[in-house]
């Protein structure tokens, strides 16, 4: 955005401090707009005729540096781009990299159905929520318009996931598009040869379109040509070379395009970027399981690089869990707002319906990630228990033991500050396996019985079977 201080925003707001936005003053609202924690629509007066001009100007000033493009419709629609910074600590990254997995139009219908099922149903629990992947890319391997259209039709009957229709053949794209023209798919891709046809199609069907060229002058020319013709929902694919010198240059292209857009305000190229780690598979030369595993690792490597350096959407091939899990987790990590607190409140929590005499007391740190992991493991496995959260300054168990934030004294302090003794009568605590070395000293200092739990809270159910309730209580 073009704004450097909340005062600049404030000048455009009604200035009545009416409070409809949920803030006490327009200035408070202005600073939240600046941080992109509130939206313009949260101030209703701005849309009254009196302020309409100011509202329009403000909308322009607040527009993100990288254009935001929407793909798909309804609840499944996703936004990509819309970024304002080069480094996440400068603000945050906003629209996570859309992970898009491929299907192709030469698959038989049974395989197609099953693959779509696997992609769309995949989920992984992480920090309080289930992660999913984002979209499906349909590749026209047949290069035949009818075959492609039928494939697209079958997919759209099965799922409402956003689609990316892929072919350099404009006829093929148009036939496919006819099947899903109301679904706002992304089409792929215009290049220096076919761009006139793609420009036509993008205009007539009003769908976002990808422009492809590893030659950045050409890519820039394509983008300027499309935008000057009024087609501005663009995605740029500067080519993903998966190995060698080509990879080094690919990395350079992604960084330089984003730099031109964000740091130099070059609107002509400030569009969402697409990377295609699927290219890692193209030179794989065997069908041995071993090769497939290392090709899949290489695809994961390319995904890693461009999730970090500026791909807003990427097309991937492997849907094996050993890639889906880390890829989607990395996206979650990079796109987490770094302004969110690292730690949760220390204290004593109740999981399920614990009883003072019989339920175990588990201990963990107040590092948010550790806390949520332990809490969800206990909840998911329906273990009625107490969870004591020690203030380790937001540091995880292993590091807090090494760094001295988790020790016998901090256990004692927490027991006392939250009067745990009045709630947990058996005076027995289960400390994390990674803090095993603290057990003796903790017993001495607190007077409680200390059990050493598993090294990973995912193993608490198994641990409970052999250790709880205690066989010979003191």
């Amino acid at each position, binding site marked *: 955005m073009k704004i450097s201080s909340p005062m600049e925003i404030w000048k455009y707001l009604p200035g009545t401090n009416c409070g409809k936005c949920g803030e006490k003053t327009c200035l408070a609202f202005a600073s939240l707009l600046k941080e992109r924690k509130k939206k313009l629509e949260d101030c209703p007066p701005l849309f009254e005729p009196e302020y309409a001009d100011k509202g329009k100007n403000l909308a322009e000033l607040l527009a993100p540096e990288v254009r935001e493009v929407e793909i798909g419709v309804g609840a499944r629609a996703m936004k990509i781009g819309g970024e304002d910074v080069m480094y996440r600590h400068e603000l945050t990254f906003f629209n996570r990299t859309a992970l898009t997995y491929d299907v192709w139009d030469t698959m038989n219908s049974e395989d197609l159905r099953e693959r779509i099922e696997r992609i769309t149903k995949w989920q992984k629990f992480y920090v309080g929520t289930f992660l999913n992947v984002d979209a499906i890319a349909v590749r026209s391997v047949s290069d035949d318009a009818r075959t492609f259209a039928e494939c697209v039709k079958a997919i759209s009957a099965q799922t409402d996931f956003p689609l990316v229709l892929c072919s350099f053949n404009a006829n093929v794209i148009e036939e496919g598009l006819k099947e899903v023209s109301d679904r706002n798919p992304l089409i792929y891709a215009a290049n220096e040869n076919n761009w006139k046809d793609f420009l036509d199609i993008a205009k007539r069907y009003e769908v976002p379109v990808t422009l492809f060229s590893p030659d950045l002058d050409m890519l820039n020319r394509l983008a300027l040509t499309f935008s000057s013709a009024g087609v501005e929902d663009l995605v740029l694919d500067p080519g993903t070379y998966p190995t060698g010198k080509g990879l*080094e240059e690919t990395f350079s292209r992604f960084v330089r395009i984003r730099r031109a857009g964000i740091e130099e305000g070059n609107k002509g190229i400030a569009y969402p970027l697409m990377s295609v780690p699927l290219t890692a598979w193209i030179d794989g030369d065997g069908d041995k399981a071993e090769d497939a595993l290392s090709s899949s690792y290489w695809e994961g490597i390319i995904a890693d690089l461009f999730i970090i350096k500026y791909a807003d959407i990427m097309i991937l091939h492997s849907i094996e869990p050993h890639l889906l899990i880390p890829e989607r987790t990395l996206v979650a990590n990079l796109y987490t707002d770094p302004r969110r607190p690292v730690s949760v409140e220390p204290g004593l929590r109740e999981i399920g319906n614990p009883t003072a005499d019989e339920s175990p007391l588990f201990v963990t740190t107040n590092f948010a990630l550790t806390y949520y992991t332990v809490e969800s493991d206990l909840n998911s496995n329906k273990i009625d228990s107490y969870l004591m959260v020690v203030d380790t300054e937001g540091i995880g168990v292993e590091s807090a033991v090494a760094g001295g934030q988790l020790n016998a004294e901090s256990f004692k302090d927490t027991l006392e500050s939250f009067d745990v003794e009045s709630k947990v009568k058996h005076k027995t605590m289960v400390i994390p396996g990674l803090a095993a070395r603290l057990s003796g000293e903790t017993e001495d200092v607190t007077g409680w019985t200390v059990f050493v739990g598993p090294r990973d809270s995912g193993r608490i159910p198994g641990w409970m079977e052999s250790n709880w309730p205690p066989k010979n209580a003191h």
Partner: protein
Amino acid sequence: MPKEVTIADIMRVLEEYDVVELDDVRIEGDVEIELSTGVAVPPSLINALQSSIGVQVSPEVTAGERIENLVEAKFEVAKAEWNGQIEEVTIGASSSDGGTREKTVTIGGEKSLPFYNFDYQMPHPPVITVDCFDISIPLAKAVRGHYQDVMEDPGEWAKKNVHEFGADMVTIHLISTDPLIKDTPAREAAKTVEEVLQAVKVPIVIGGSGNPDKDPEVLEAAAEAAEGERCLIASANLNMDYERIAKAAQDYGHVILSWTQLDINAQKTLNRYLFKLGVPRGDIVIDPTTAALGYGLDYAFTNIERMRISALRGDADLAFPISCGITNAWGAREAWMKYSPIREDSDWGPAVNRGPIYEIMTGLTLGIAGGDMFMMMHPEAASAVKRVTQMLFGSEETADKEIMIKDWVKWKCK
């Protein structure tokens, strides 16, 4: 023969689509409809016009001619200019420098972000040091298989790392010295270090057990035993007698690893203490703490990225090569656990496939943030991180195989 259409016919169709009025529309004698830019006409409406009344609607719905040529343009972007430069640090000493290493390793020296060769060519590629331990330790199944035969012998373990797995360096972790593990005396630990130095000719990292009370004594004895070899002593940190470790490193000619926990200010403070003790800048590597993918990697990434950017902007307190303990990736349960403990999760697949990619992605991610040295464990993970960082560094002059990337759309998978 084209059907005759009246304006009224068209209006009826428009009404069906709830279009009351069309601004910027001219309907000319030969019934060609042109809409100006900004008029949104649903494709379905155009189809309806075409099919129900046979009007030929030009596909070019925007006013003006069909664009025949691409707009001329050149893509340009400035290079990033930074004031600062990362210190260059050499680990290992060859015979000409009083050691016995056959090769040495130099890291750091950057004047740009990692792999931003278009700004300033990265002077040295990142290096990989592979772990070995002075005692048999519990390891994830995917890792254990590779080391089963050498777990009782640190010298053999070190050799395997170099000769079979191509490690640039070896890290010997003296974890058995921890009073809660085996309480191996410092003197004995020093012997282990000598063994490793005998076994391999690459530079080595000497790691303690992490016990803040015991480490100063252990690392001092180890530093003495390795005199002149210019090892990396791991590590000094704020909650222990770092002075004793720093002094030992200096007295016996080693490099010191300055370790803090995800805290820029603590890192600056510890580094300043080391300057005060007279440690030369060329003898410091920093370890700002590594967290595993999914378990704090975002904090580690941003912490390292911020440190590197501050250093390049001229903060001399932070301008040091960065070492990352990538083996921590195995702390992520996804790296080793057989099944998900969360019932609603989709199937996790075989754990042996997950472990290496967790280590790879943790390593590469921190490499992009600013890591210069990776302490790693799984051989395939180590070689994959090595390969990709070499490519990004620019070691390869050509693509190792010419592939037509735009053919990915038609790629036939096996």
